[in-house]
């Protein structure tokens, strides 16, 4: 039988190794070290078609992940899909007129929401531009460009492309085109 001290040291090593393994699973294997979604703001976008998009799908801008989809609901008034996204707090300077589209990563990959930055124009700048064109002195205006904030809604959206719909459209156009040719002859 080993001495009590050696036993205790070995048990200590064992427990430390187990905790280290758990720590590695948390930090290195899972997404704990990635974006902390709790710490951010939620924006909303309405899509005609959100098929294939899932909760936890990535939200990217310029190909970099800046947040995740947190909820997908159906709005019975507008008959659209309402997609709520949580954006990391670091990215609080996205122009308010950014547009959102649902893309597919690769041929068989998962769907994600891609944000494209708008011009950052706002009513102030537009008013100033108009005034300049009309030769008036620009009116004083408060605030800079508007940015996406908690609860903002993205207005310009492009839903998922469903392959069947595309093919159907292509086929119908093809048939129509063929019909016109025949008519011309």
């Amino acid at each position: 039988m080993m001495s009590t001290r050696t036993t205790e040291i070995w048990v200590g090593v064992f427990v430390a190794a187990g905790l280290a393994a758990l720590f590695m699973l948390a930090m290195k294997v899972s997404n704990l070290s990635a974006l902390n979604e709790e710490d951010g703001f939620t924006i909303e976008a309405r899509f005609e078609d959100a098929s294939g998009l899932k909760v936890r799908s990535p939200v990217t801008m310029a190909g970099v992940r800046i947040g995740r989809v947190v909820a997908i609901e159906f709005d019975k008034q507008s008959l659209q899909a309402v997609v709520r996204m949580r954006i990391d707090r670091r990215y609080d300077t996205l122009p308010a007129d950014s547009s959102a589209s649902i893309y597919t990563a690769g041929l068989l990959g998962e769907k994600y929401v891609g944000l494209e930055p708008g011009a950052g124009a706002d009513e102030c700048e537009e008013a100033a531009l108009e005034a300049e064109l009309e030769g008036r002195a620009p009116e004083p205006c408060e605030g800079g460009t508007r940015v996406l904030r908690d609860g903002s809604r993205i207005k310009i959206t492009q839903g998922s492309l469903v392959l069947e719909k595309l093919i159907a459209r292509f086929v119908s156009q093809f048939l129509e085109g063929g019909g016109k040719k025949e008519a011309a002859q």
Partner: protein
Amino acid sequence: MLDLLQNLGRRGLGVFERLGRASLLLVQILSGLHTLLPRPRLVIQQVFSVGVLSLVIIVVSGTFVGMVLGLQGYNTLVDFGAEESLGVVVALSLVRELGPVVTALLFAGRAGSALTAEIGLMKATEQLSALEMMAVDPVRRVLAPRFIAGFISMPLLAAIFSAVGVLGGYFVGVGLLGVDEGAYWSQMQDKVDLYDDVYNGVIKSLAFGWVATWIAVFEGHDAVPTSEGVSRATTRTVVYTSLAVLGLDFVLTALMFGD
């Protein structure tokens, strides 16, 4: 015909009788746990024999399971040009399923059988009765530390198994087969969720640790005090633990990932 019915009835009653005794023993063990607080050395001693001594088999099997996953996953994924996802395949299968389940099966063979044999032999050589003669409750002194040691050791062993397996898959996938190192880790981190996958794996291994040591301790305590009885009890421990772990795994998986 009547004999057959009689036999069947006796068997059925026997099953319920043993289940009842096992439950009562569990209650006794749980109600005796607080007496261990002032004497942690008893538990440490058992963590050593249950956990530390199982470490070698866990590390070696974990490495090889991870390596096989890496090899098989690569061969399947490369057909779809998706070998970048190897890390996800290896990590998810290990953390969700193979880590807890294989660890529990190895635990049943390595530690559970030893627990049953030890307690059964204590009973056969009347050491348990001797303890009772000295007004020491054998359930609290002998069974409770072993039960709690198994409960503590199993999640740690399963975590070590999974971590070593991920490294084994890394060795084969990145080292030998040429999967991109960055893709291996980043895809893994992208798809493996801390709460859904890692925590649920830990909960699974806690449940398995509970069941495995419960069965081992009960079979030892319930063994017929002869050499044949102890050997039968040891066999039953390994068989029942394996069946219970696999059945419980299905139930837990359905509860956790079923929706």
